[in-house]
């Protein structure tokens, strides 16, 4: 893997994520979040998983992030309270990070080595989704349906 590219993308992704958590203006935070998502997509490309990378861009950057931005623009009515910085959250995040780092350092290598040089085509993915993974695919569809119904039910205003 190209380590220079890796470090560049990593720094970009991480700083965008930190910005998303810290920025006061919600719109700015949402846009930073989108950048972080793009960074993750870049990792996928770097790893040779073009399909996943594309899906990441289409779904997360193209749909989710945009949806978030629209939601914020449409529903916020200018209340911009100044809330204190949440130090307890930082402490916890750092503690988790420390534990993870320690564990990663102590762990020699992953058990399963990646198979080199195998490129998976979209067609193969599609075939896998319709054969071996058809059951989870259906269930994810059901999951999304349930989420949709639930969201509608909750957001619908009651006519009183």
């Amino acid at each position, binding site marked *: 893997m190209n380590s220079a590219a890796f470090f560049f993308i990593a720094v970009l992704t991480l700083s965008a994520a930190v910005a998303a958590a810290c920025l006061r203006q919600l719109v700015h935070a949402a846009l930073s979040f989108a950048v972080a998502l793009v960074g993750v997509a870049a990792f996928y490309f770097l790893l040779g998983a073009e399909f996943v990378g594309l899906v990441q861009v289409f779904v997360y950057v193209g749909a989710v992030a945009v949806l978030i931005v629209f939601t914020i623009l449409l529903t916020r009515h200018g209340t911009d309270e100044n809330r204190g910085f949440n130090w307890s959250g930082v402490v916890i995040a750092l503690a988790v990070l420390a*534990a*993870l780092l*320690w*564990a*990663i350092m*102590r*762990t*020699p290598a*992953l*058990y*399963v080595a990646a198979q080199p040089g195998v490129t998976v085509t979209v067609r193969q993915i599609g075939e896998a989704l319709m*054969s*071996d*993974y*058809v*059951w*989870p695919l259906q*269930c*994810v569809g*059901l*999951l999304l*349906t*349930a*989420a949709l*119904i*639930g*969201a509608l*039910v*909750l957001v619908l205003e*009651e*006519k*009183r």
Partner: protein
Amino acid sequence: MSYLELLRLAAPEAIVVLTAFVVLTIGLVTGRREAGDTPAATAGLGALVAALGLAIAAATIVRLPGHATLFHGMLVVSPLNSLFQVIVLVLAFFTVILARGERLLPNKGEYLAMILLATVGLMLLIGSEELLMIFIGLELTGLSLYVMTAFDKASQTSAEAGLKYFLFGSMASAFTLFGLSLIYGFTGTTSLAAIGPRLAEQALPPLLFVGIVMTLIGFLFKIAAAPFHLWAPDAYQGAPVSTAGFIASGSKVASFIVLGKILLIGFGPVSGSADWHGLIAGWTPILAVLSALSILIGNLVALVQKNVRRLLAYSAVAHGGYTLLGLIAGGRAGFSATLFYTTIYAVTLVGAFGVVGFVRRENGGDDLADFAGLRARSPLLAGCMAIFLLSLAGLPPLAGFFGKFYLFSTALRAGANHGLLWLVALALFGSLISLYYYLIVLKVIFLDENAQATPAVARYDFEMRADYLPKMTLLVLAGAVLLLGIIPGTLVARILASFG
């Protein structure tokens, strides 16, 4: 594998999904003519269809082949899975009936549909031995339950409870997903049956343990083990009563069976030991610590609750702690003890929340004071509640007694040299404390006078118009609690036999 084969094996799930859509359609077609409450007739029709669908699904499960595995464990039909899918369907069935007796929610059709979708989620959880599907099941269940919790739009507490449940549920899910990805990274497989041998082969790196812990978090959240229990009191108190009952029963049963499978099949080689004088790293000591914490926190905090639903929530935390004992003990005996206990607990709690629902409908609240003098107003409800609570306290000959005896005896037997004695003693001590607060509720029900004497009309209403069906259901549940206490062998033998 052909699609036809898949359809045949997944028929129960498919039936419940179809029923959900039918119920949804009924609600849409007839429900929104008048603003506000759904007409009673529609609600009745919806509930009838839902109950029918659940019954048909249960019948279909019985007719499935004994053993079948599709897609490396994504869909597994086995006696154990079938048994617990039927149990979950039965719990959902009772929930649907008791939801009828509840104050009519707006959008009743959607509500019933969400119950059914949550049930499908539980069935997926139970019926898969593969990490990916388990996660999808977890999410489907979770999402449906979040929505159901926030369903009562007239109530602020419902909205708040739903939001909290959602936020922390997502957080727990995120950790679980991260953990699953680590497990996959180390073993190269998502099938539980294949993970076990892989784990046994290698020396275990610390990161793998991190993965295991993170995987567990989602389930510990679902069973409300301390310190991941904070959502439970709010959700139990704020959600519509039938939802609270379903969260406490169906969701718990499914979570325990999946947790058991993951731990015993998947993570079996890294179980470790929680013996008093021989702690060995693994998941057993983690569960033991959490179990002890849950028992202590749940019981102590329940002592000072003034709201019956909150009290039940904290006692649920404690019961989660007892139930973990079986998994800590491990093996077939321990797993079957856990499954038996969680089943009878679920039956009991559905009933207890049914009574709470009645009282809430009558008095508009579910604080201890609202239960005052229930005996005089409805001896039936008071009697049922007494059976449920005393069973929770573990008083023989009710089901809770044998459940605890079974759990504790397996735990004591499991640890070499009685290593788990400390935990069993703690659990017994916890159940001693629990009797005290259950008795407080019973004292209010049986001895206290009703302070805000309900007007005669309301009382008449309460006694006469209250649905016949929900009351019969409560009676059936109370009978089941008694019967499972007197002849527990039937269910235990079934569970043991289903291990094959």
